């Protein structure tokens, strides 16, 4: 069980690491527009928008 003497402080530092990553994500604006992030899975990476055609998309109505 001696390994715990290492693991417990390590977990504390890991925690601070997690907080740092979240801080970066937050200030990079990843949490500002949660609806759009949810729909991002549907985006075509080339177009940057929904659809498979390579033509310019008409405005959605």
């Amino acid at each position: 069980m001696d390994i715990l003497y290492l693991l417990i402080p390590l977990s504390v530092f890991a925690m601070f690491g997690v907080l740092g990553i979240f801080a970066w994500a937050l200030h990079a604006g990843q949490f500002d527009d949660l609806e759009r992030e949810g729909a991002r899975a549907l985006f075509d990476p080339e177009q940057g928008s929904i659809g498979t055609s390579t033509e310019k998309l008409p405005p959605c109505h």
Partner: protein
Amino acid sequence: MSPSFVAARPAEVLEADRGPRWAADAHDARLASATLRLSGLHCAGCAASVEAALRSDAAVRDVSVSHASQSARVRFDSQRTNLNALLQVVRSAGYGAALDEADAARELRRSESRLALWRAFVAAFCGMQVMMLALPGYVAEAGDIAPDLTRLLDWGAWLLTVPVLLFSAAPFFSGAWRSLQVRRIGMDVPVALGISVAFIASSGAALNPAGPFGHEVYFDSLTMFISFLLIGRWIEMRMRHWAAEALEAATGVMPQTALRLGADGLSEAVPIDQLRVSDILRIAVGEAFPADGVVIEGRSHVDESLLSGESKPVPKLPGMSVIGGSINLGAPVMMRVERCGADTRYEAIVGLMRDAATQRPASARWADRWAGPFLWTVLLLAGLGALVWSFIDPQRAVWVAVSVLVVTCPCALSLATPSALLAAAQALARRGVLLRRIDALEPLAAMQRLFLDKTGTLTTQRPRLARIERLPVCADLTEPELLRLAASLGAWSHHPLSMALCEAAPPDRRAQAWRDVREQAGAGVEAIDVLGQRWRLGNARWVLGAAGVVALLRVGDSADVDSANVDSANVDSANVDSANVDSANVDSADVDSADVDSADVFSGESPRASAAQGVRVSLGREGAVLAHFIFDETLADGVAQALAALRADGIALTLLSGDAPARVQRLARRLEIDATQAIGGATPERKLLEIEAAQARGESVGMIGDGVNDAPVLARADVSLAMGEGALLARASADAVIVSNRLADVVQARAMAKRTLRVIAQNIAWAATYNAVCVPLALFGLLPPWAAGLGMAASSLLVVGNSLRLQHALPSPRTSGTSA
């Protein structure tokens, strides 16, 4: 279209504190950042399209488009491109774009939201880790874990709790400090007290397990309940922001740029936030006035539906004042700016709306009143418990006090009512009813009598062609041909009556060739056809004057005659003093202090006549009237059903309108409203009297009207609503704006209001029960702090969840085509 405002006067732009913000980057390029307001984003994919379009411009360094707030933040090299070019890029991608004015408020909301989320995250994740470290303590038998390891676990938990306490819980401490400074107990005081006592006691236990604080540490319950409190606050803030954004989006789009005439006579396009008082602006036809001011050149008529709710155009002559946001219909004018930016009426209204979004509802203020005694009781009980237990079992004294402080849920008094009201406001906003004053929900539920305005509320703004009267003198043209001619001539005008003609014209009308088209404010539109004949469409008197008859009106010193032509053929020589001059009775002798109402002159009807017949427009050729077109006001869709639903709900209805009594009675008969409850010809004073009389009878009164026109009347009613067609800005004094223009939504709003009151009652009942049960449990030492924390968090979540139920309480609208 216009020279780039960037290049025009760079010095002025830099010294002004408005407009895009500037910064120099490492390569000494001037980077400007601006926020654009977008329109036409119907899905998240559209946001990505706009982003791609903007990124394709080489001068753009950074772009981020938010679908939720329909805005785009752009950073671009200002020396290689400018804002107008970027707006064009977005427009050519198929979306609308304009400079965003609500930038500052949105920025504030964003940073507020980020900070709240950051705090909640720190508390939650640290709390989770602390729980991991606390788990061995719960699971192990006594003596299973070496004391060294126990100490390590405790200190690890302590280290992770410190950021939570110092950073995440900071709002509670500052809130508690603030309320103590004003010598009142706020919600934050017991929370702050409980947190600090728990932390100090746990730290003491970690430091010295054999000491007065015992050996139990409760960092896990501490962080847990801080994180739950913060999550609850973040949810509440998100709802508040959502409401604010909905209100901002609803205030419509003011023109974003204006054509300013410089001293050298050249015009340049400037963003309206760079306008100054006494700038001279040129306003084209169809454009909106960007600021309050005075017309200095040009004669036109403007659509002031923003203020009056009536789309009848108001003629403007040099010297008359115009309001920012109204639309120029007749001819290009030049105006001088008198009030711009924050001083305009537009901004005042927007400011009002923003205040409404942040105010505390009355029920919350009630809750605050009760909070004081409640919290004092809690503090007293905690102290008493500690005292009693210090005799019985000193080691548990502190923990009993902490449990009592922690278990009492401030949620009832702080979170329950506002979260329910906000969820209801959000649901209603999605449905199309914007609550300016959130606590209007309560009087809405209690309303017993509803006063209805007529125009714009029950009837649509646009008149409808009812029939065509062809005069015998017109033998060569049939009625469809007359309609076609009138529609093609009326297409040159923005007047609502001519637009109604265009709507009524058969769809297969051939384009009639007109030349020399001229529109005369207050009279009509005239043109010359291919045969060289002069046609006129408009006021009957004016149409008669097409043959070249000149008006012989001698005007007294103090007359106020508008620009209509008065036909001398119907003129005799009596004296008219201080009367409303009816076009049928106009005299050519001295006219003193007479006001000619332009709208009636255009339509050629006196108020009396139009009450009987409806509004009339005439078509004439070379001075001979060929036909009259009679218009009728149409009842808005769904009005009858909505009124029936309101009646079924137990609300008494009264029609209260300034329009002619005969018309009002006719409408009342159509809508099955009792004739005694249909009051026409009511001045604002009369309306006020009616409302006061109803209130004196003990009735709770609501009023639906058109906003600014009836401002004192609306303010007097217990709850006031305004329909939102067109200009929402005008609805400044109503408690709620029905953006969807469906009267049926009033019924929905009322149902929602009743549900909300029920939910609030449920929340408060739950909180009272919970406190009544748990505080004695804690006092008797049966509730360890971790259970107290759990109970309090669960109670908060239950209340918020109950309130969130309201978001889905409304059925979706069944009518298609209207945005919710």
